[in-house]
């Protein structure tokens, strides 16, 4: 077993030196994600222009590194809107949708998982069957069907994103709660006469929180990808709001004349997802206590 685990430490795709605590690439991804988070918080302060302000005289201007002016560092789009400002807001909207969607999914899934573990029997059967149904279809298809039926307002879109991944939270929670209920501390609280709700929220939830947090970080980048894909198709976040996928989709029509409109937001999506997966691999290797001693 221990020899099987040895390679997993080494199998990490990072060029890890055994003695360095933070490999360069991990530091880079951390820095990048911090910048993205900073933009999410401060987009309105950082943006030089209103992201909706049009200026038809200054359409399709190139970025400054392709001979543009310093007035629009990353150029302008087909309506003369400042691309830098739009990018900053697009990051804010994309992160907002991903955070909101993941939070809703985590909350609903966790509550349903608790319900399944508490009531067992019929309730559990129904909840787990719904989870199975959802897991058996690609979520993209479910999201498209919901959008087709109910249209594409912003709040509704966040709700639909919240549908993603609830079944994983529900399964996880149900499993951990059932095993936690069998442990001494929960039985002791029941014997002392504590109501189930109190035991769940005060005693069991803190014990399973770490599992849920890990799942949250796994779910988050997937919701970003889902949102950008749907917005790219023109079925997610729609104008006048913007998101990274929406910018990329809209810029597709100008590939021949102004390729940067599509490539800039695409690069940010790519760097974000690749950073999260590199960082995630690294954290998993570090947090897994069975691997910690094996590597050195």
């Amino acid at each position, binding site marked *: 077993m221990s020899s099987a685990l040895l390679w997993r430490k080494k199998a990490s795709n990072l060029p890890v030196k055994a003695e360095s605590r933070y490999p360069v690439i991990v530091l880079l991804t951390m820095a990048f994600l911090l910048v993205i988070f900073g933009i999410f918080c401060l987009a309105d302060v950082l943006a030089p222009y209103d992201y909706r302000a049009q200026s038809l005289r200054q359409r399709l201007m190139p970025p400054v590194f392709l001979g543009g002016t310093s007035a629009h560092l990353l150029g302008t789009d087909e309506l003369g809107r400042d691309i830098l400002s739009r990018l900053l807001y697009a990051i804010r909207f994309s992160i907002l949708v991903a955070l909101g969607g993941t939070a809703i999914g985590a909350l609903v899934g966790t509550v349903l998982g608790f319900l399944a573990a508490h009531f067992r029997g019929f309730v559990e059967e129904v909840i787990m*069957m719904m989870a199975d149904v959802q897991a058996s*279809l690609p979520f993209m298809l479910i999201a498209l069907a919901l959008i*087709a039926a109910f249209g594409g307002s912003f709040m509704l879109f966040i709700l639909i994103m919240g549908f993603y991944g609830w079944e994983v939270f529900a399964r996880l929670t149900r499993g951990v709660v059932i095993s936690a209920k069998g442990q001494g501390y929960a039985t002791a609280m029941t014997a002392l006469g504590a109501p189930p709700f109190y035991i769940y929220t005060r005693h069991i939830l803190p014990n399973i929180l770490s599992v849920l947090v890990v799942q949250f970080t796994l779910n988050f980048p997937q919701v970003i*990808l889902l949102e950008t894909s749907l917005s790219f198709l023109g079925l997610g976040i729609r104008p006048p709001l913007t998101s990274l996928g929406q910018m*990329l989709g809209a810029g597709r029509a100008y590939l021949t004349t102004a390729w940067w409109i599509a490539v800039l937001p695409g*690069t940010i*999506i790519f760097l974000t997802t690749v950073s999260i997966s590199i960082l995630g691999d690294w954290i998993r290797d570090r947090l897994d206590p069975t691997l910690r001693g094996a590597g050195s």
Partner: protein
Amino acid sequence: MNGRLLTTKLIRGVLTIWLIVTFTFIALNLSGDPIEALVGDQASPAVMAYYRQKFGLDRPLWEQYISYLGNIIRGDFGLSLSDQKPAVELVIAALPYTLRLGLTSFIGGLVVGLVFGIIAALHRNSTLDRFIMGFAVLGFSLPNFFLGILLILLFALHWRVLPSAGADSAWHLILPAVTLGTHFAGIFARFARSTMLEVLNKQYMVAARAKGAPHFRRVFWHALPNAAIPIVTIVGLKLGDLVAGSIIVETVFGWPGVGRLLVGAITSRDFAVVQAILIMVAVTMVLTNFAVDFIYTLIDPRMRTASQGGR
């Protein structure tokens, strides 16, 4: 698979499909008036009533539901609102394109991923290994819509060597298939590598070495068959990704398959087509899960003895 397990899975599968059919019916009825979407809100009541009757929307809800179920069992998903053809016909006309693109990229990605994943595992921690795994991470982190656009920019607009849209010739298949296949190559390479490494660490590999089996025989005779078992599972699981991926890639490259049909149908609120695709995909996924379970028992002798002895 023993009889009881098979029956449970069968019931679950049928239940899944029934729930999805019911869900589409509910969504259809909650989503507003399709007739208004078809003829516009300026149309006269007589015209509206005519279409309502034509599509059977004037009957009570439960009656609509029963006939809806009956129609779907007969394979009748209704008429496409936009061009009055049966929705099934539109989907079936688009299906060969989707299959051609999907199978090419899936099998291509599988072969490339497995070969490079196994090479990486056999040269663990070498520069070659790091190089392959670096590419694998890039491959599955690149969102397919972005990769598609980059490929169009380079190969169709900059170098002008490949067409960027349409499905007229085999050349048209290259860019979309590479876009869709890259994702799978990345995922399968990583998975094949870790599975292979796990197998290579097993006692029976040491035994094979000890009895003097040559390297080639150890890899192909002892390691690969054992690594194949988890790989079959992940291949089945990734089929959903293929469906989602082809929706995007077909739209990017103007590929006339089911994915593009779906996006078009949603934009024009053509529900007959949307539900036909939804239900057909659901049936395909349920059947695939069966197939994966079945193949699993075929290739893993342990599963057979476990299901005979157990329960």
